[in-house]
């Protein structure tokens, strides 16, 4: 067991995969000489060379599409997009090509590309670098969407994504890169099929993922001090989502709060809430509550930025409300 940062865990996976399989390469803006905008690939250029740690021009559509094309001829590209905001410039490639080529060709080709991007607010980067748009991608059949919240998943899910025959989008919350966590020795393999019960409880299920896990877990600890036993689900894989684990937990606690940094309207939390209403309605003892992003482009000043994304106190308040202590 050793303590590593989320960033180091990503780098571990990059190094391991590149040593294990010569078809793997990393491509993106400033991944090489600069070392990655969040320093995930620092030092890898020296280790693997310019062909495999490939700096690209500012051409999101071009290099994401090139990753898809390389995957079509048997490579295993990892494409890094600086932020989910920039990924909109590559949306055509991800949705019209990566997600459709297998189906459109009648199953003749597959696209084993991995696309990593940072997501989320908290660094005062304002309205063009801070959003949580997981929902844009979870909406799309043909894509798999991952949201690691722990160092074990930051490493393990990237490796698992590289073994997947289909396009995988990985969201790395920018607030997590400096987070430290315990990495078992040897580091464990993880699956891309299950949600994880991060904390067991019996009174209310707090459903979250990625950058919101920490505050949700803090909320659960605070609730415990007030005698309320909250179960925390770390969804991990946002598409295809492990609904069974969600419904099993709701069947136990009869109450659900969804915590997600994305905008509330039409968002990721909306889908989770709708599925619970459709398929677990009779298990509920209280309406589902959501703690989600406020409907505003992310502002620059820290007090406004924090007010626009879920806070621990809001999660506690929502949980108290659904258990009848609000």
């Amino acid at each position, binding site marked *: 067991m050793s303590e590593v940062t989320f960033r180091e865990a990503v780098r571990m996976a990059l190094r391991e995969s590149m040593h294990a399989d010569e078809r793997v390469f990393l491509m993106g803006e400033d991944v090489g000489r600069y070392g990655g905008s969040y320093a995930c690939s620092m030092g890898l250029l020296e280790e693997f060379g310019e062909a495999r740690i490939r700096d690209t021009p500012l051409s999101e559509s071009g290099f994401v599409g090139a990753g898809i094309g*390389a995957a079509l001829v048997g490579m295993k590209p990892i494409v890094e997009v600086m932020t989910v905001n920039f990924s909109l410039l590559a949306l055509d490639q991800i949705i019209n090509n990566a997600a459709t080529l297998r189906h459109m060709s009648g199953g003749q080709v597959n696209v084993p590309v991995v696309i990593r991007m940072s997501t989320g607010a908290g660094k005062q980067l304002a309205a063009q670098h801070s959003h949580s748009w997981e929902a844009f991608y979870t909406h799309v059949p043909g894509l798999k969407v991952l949201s690691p919240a722990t160092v074990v998943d930051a490493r393990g899910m990237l490796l698992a994504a590289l073994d997947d025959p289909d396009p995988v989008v990985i969201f790395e919350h920018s607030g997590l890169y400096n987070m430290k966590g315990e990495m078992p020795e040897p580091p464990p393999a993880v699956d891309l099929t299950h949600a994880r019960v991060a904390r067991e409880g019996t009174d209310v299920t707090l459903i979250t993922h990625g950058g919101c896990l920490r505050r949700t877990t803090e909320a659960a600890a605070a609730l415990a001090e007030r005698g309320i036993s909250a179960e925390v689900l770390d969804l991990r894989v946002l598409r295809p989502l492990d609904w069974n684990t969600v419904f099993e937990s709701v069947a136990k606690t009869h109450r659900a709060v969804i915590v997600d940094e994305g905008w509330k309207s039409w968002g990721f939390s909306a889908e989770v809430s709708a599925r619970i209403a459709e398929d677990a309605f009779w298990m509920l003892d209280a309406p589902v509550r959501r703690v989600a992003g406020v409907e505003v482009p992310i502002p620059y000043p820290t007090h406004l930025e924090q007010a626009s994304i879920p806070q621990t106190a809001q999660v506690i308040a929502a949980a108290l409300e659904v258990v009848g202590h609000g």
Partner: protein
Amino acid sequence: MTALPGRGHALHLLTQMVRIRRFEERCAELYSAGKIRGFLHLYIGEEAVATGALRALGPDDALLCTYREHGHALVRGVPMNKVMAEMFGKQEGCSRGRGGSMHLFDAEHRLYGGNAIVAGHLPLAVGMGLGDQMAGRQRVTACFFGEGAIAEGEFHESMNLAALWKLPVLFACENNGYAMGTALARSESQTALTVKAASYGMPAVSVDGMDVVAVETETRAIVDAIRAGGGPAFIEYKTYRFRAHSMFDAELYRDKAEVDEHRKRDPIPSFLRRMIAANTLTEEDLAHIEAKVAEELSEAVAFAEAGTWEPIEELTRDVYTEVGA
């Protein structure tokens, strides 16, 4: 002056152009009969481009096309039966019926669509060339697109990436003069397309796309240079579409006189005339080809008619790769 082909070669070129022409004429009829639906973009008038250019490619080279790709698929060797079944949406089609006219795929023949986002397949071609380069394979990726694609950002991003990394990609621009209904001069500040391509530091040539011999000769020279490690290249085929953009197009944007003028340069009769004058082919050769193509075509229509509909129970297959499949 390019050398004229010998008899066998000339017969091949004529046969392929006639196959495309007759296939598409039948498709238009089948569209009116309701057998083919959705969009149907005919290549009639442009046959010399696919016919000549594809002869310069080897079987290991990859091919990406636009939604006006029936001709490319046929010349590439995708059986006419499978192409026609795809037009009908039958599961015996080359894309299991999932794609239709705009999305003809055949992995065995390295045909990667049938792509219907203008310029959206150019980045894919760059990546395929990159993969080949990294793996040390001597293959060329040929990417066909219309001149309308040149206004898209993805064209410029792709040209830059391919030139920067010296990738084995042929950028093959089929300039038929109109992006749907918008003439080139109404959409581009610089209508000399090779000037734009050359600005990326790659060879750029323009060729008469109505002349199948010139198309083949110029394409072969440029593909050979790419294969020899020269990096990407751009070729413009100046051609003309005789029919409407799609079956929904009333052609309000061009005069009939303009179309008639271009029809005088129809690539099929003009090639035949040249070959007859050179004593390489005869009128009887054409009659013989027409008879064989008619036979192939009626068999393809019968195959498509006899094809089956994929069961609705299979609706969601091939969205993801089946685990263990």
